[in-house]
């Protein structure tokens, strides 16, 4: 009930560039829920939109940023974390959020992901995982579940997948979480905790591509797809994550890892200040 009370003073329209509506996401796409959950978290945290920078890559996820009434950067394919690294190092006063996708983040951008995790700059990375390259017509991605049909796996996917959260944790991300679009309040809370976390935060958002992925695999209408998320997930959270393979099998949601590690930007600035003091003194 508390969540419902909090919804009432959040109007997503306050945070959107309404002149760009209607948006171009397909009907039933889960990315809108992810976007709304992010803005809801931004609202609750009271972040000044002038100081909010949203950095996106290429693909369906990459096009979500433009709708946010903040400083938005639509960069090159796979590279938003690298752009965000420069932006955050140059402008530590900005809240930097990266919105990326499973292809953008794990395939072409995989190298940047692991090094962003390792560096531990105070950036929040939302990876919208819909298991497919939607923008280019539905090709297989590094998270496409086994046997799924895509336009480049016409006989069903035979490649193994990544568990992005385990990858991020192993690479050194100091905050790792996963949530489904079915549970917007929980997703909002996770994103909020990720932004509040001082260090690199990786959040995997399980989003549905109904028009392409759902259609090709006969997963039903968008309502059916989003309802099926419930049976796919185990809301155990930190400490209780079961060792399970990826969707459509059961997988953990919530905060999956949280480590106290020095935020890199502050470490660099403190060391630089010491050097300057030494030079001047």
């Amino acid at each position, binding site marked *: 009930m508390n969540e419902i009370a909090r919804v009432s003073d959040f109007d997503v329209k306050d945070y959107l560039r309404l002149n760009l509506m209607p948006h171009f996401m397909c009907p039933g796409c889960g990315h809108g829920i992810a976007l709304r959950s992010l803005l809801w978290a931004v609202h609750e945290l009271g972040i000044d939109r002038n100081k909010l920078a949203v950095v996106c890559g290429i693909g369906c996820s990459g096009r979500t940023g433009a709708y946010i009434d903040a400083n938005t950067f639509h960069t090159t394919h796979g590279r938003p974390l690298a752009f965000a690294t420069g932006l955050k190092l140059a402008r530590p*006063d900005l809240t930097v959020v990266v919105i990326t996708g499973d292809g953008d983040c794990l395939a072409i951008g995989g190298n940047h992901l692991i090094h962003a995790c390792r560096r531990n700059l105070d950036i929040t990375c939302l990876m919208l995982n819909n298991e497919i390259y939607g923008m280019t017509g539905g090709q297989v991605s590094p998270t496409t579940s086994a046997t799924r049909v895509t336009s480049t796996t016409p006989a069903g996917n035979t490649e193994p997948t990544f568990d992005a959260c385990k990858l991020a944790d192993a690479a050194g991300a100091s905050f790792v979480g996963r949530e489904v679009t079915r549970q917007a309040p929980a997703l909002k809370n996770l994103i909020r905790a990720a932004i509040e976390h001082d260090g690199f935060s990786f959040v995997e958002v399980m989003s549905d591509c109904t028009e392409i992925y759902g259609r090709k695999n006969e997963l039903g209408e968008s309502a059916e797809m989003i309802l099926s998320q419930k049976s796919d997930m185990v809301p155990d959270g930190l400490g209780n994550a079961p060792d399970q393979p990826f969707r459509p099998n059961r997988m953990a949601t919530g905060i999956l890892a949280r480590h106290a590690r020095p935020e890199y930007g502050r470490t660099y600035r403190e060391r630089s200040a010491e050097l300057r003091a030494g030079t001047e003194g």
Partner: protein
Amino acid sequence: MSSSLHSLQGNKACALAAIAAGCRFFAGYPITPSSEIAEQMSRDLPRVDGVFVQMEDEIASLAAVIGASLGGSKAMTATSGPGFSLMQENLGFAAMTEVPCVIINVMRGGPSTGMPTKPAQGDIMQARWGTHGDHPIIVVAPASVQEVYAETIRAFNLSERFRVPVVVLYDQIIAHLIETVELPPKGSIHTVERKWASGTEEGFKPYAETDDLVPVMARPGDGHRLHVTGLTHTEDGFPTQKPDLAAHALNRILDKIERNRAEIDKVEQIETKDAGTVIVAVGIAARAARRAVQMLRSEGIRAGLVRPVTLWPFPDEALRAATANARAVLVPEMNAGQLIHEVQRVVGGSAKVAGLNRVDGEPIPPAAIAQKVRELVADE
């Protein structure tokens, strides 16, 4: 304070110049023969409250540079052939989104891994045309350590002035050459800042056309919440596919350079007034050519040198004027023939154009250039 003399390596001069020009962000990836620039920046930037970061590759390096520049910092990276190849996509992004940045490309033998410790001039065309699509770019080509210092500062100034990526192109010899450099006194260096929006302008459009075609830039946090995209965009920064708007957007960023050539062009000419044979060369090849001109003049052969310091856009007008009375033009370059195509385009049929090429990782000596000129004169 007066100027001071220092014995400096080319790459070190580049780093010192960048900081003097106001560079406060460097992102890079180790690569021979440019690494000394990163090493110097890693030492110096923290001392001026700047940021150095070694990224995971050259793609990320230029991305981080553009990110920092979008945040308001003057930013640069330094690399060599293989790394420059990896940077091409983001270089196009900077050109398209009009984000100032400076890229140092120290040329080594290529293609591929080539000869990492040997000099070459094989990236002359890549520096202009490496990224896909029509795009604006400025490339400067210093020929001495002193000039590396001056041209690195000018690169930052041009980049800020025109909101365009600027490439500083030199080779392994100049990078590692140690020469006496006269450094100007602190405070005497002319630096240029990009046109910043105050953040309070009514109806601000981030890509609105101005008199000089260079739009005013908005800094995140100052009030304008802007959108930046590599997609073809309108004056408000948002994507468009409308033919008239798309054509206008591309033509403006191209015209921005062409219409401001007077501020961009820089050509050195030696003995070209009465020259019957004009040598056209850049960088280390031009230094050999300068000596060759002296040798030839002492023999009574009327040779001259045209050296584009701003290599791109190519100095058509200056070259056309300098070769108006020439019977032959020689283009010595440390590649299989790149600059010569531009020279042929400009000179046309008005003079015989010949090349002198070397691709073995060694510089072209003055005597070889002088001998080639003698042959051209004998053929007339």
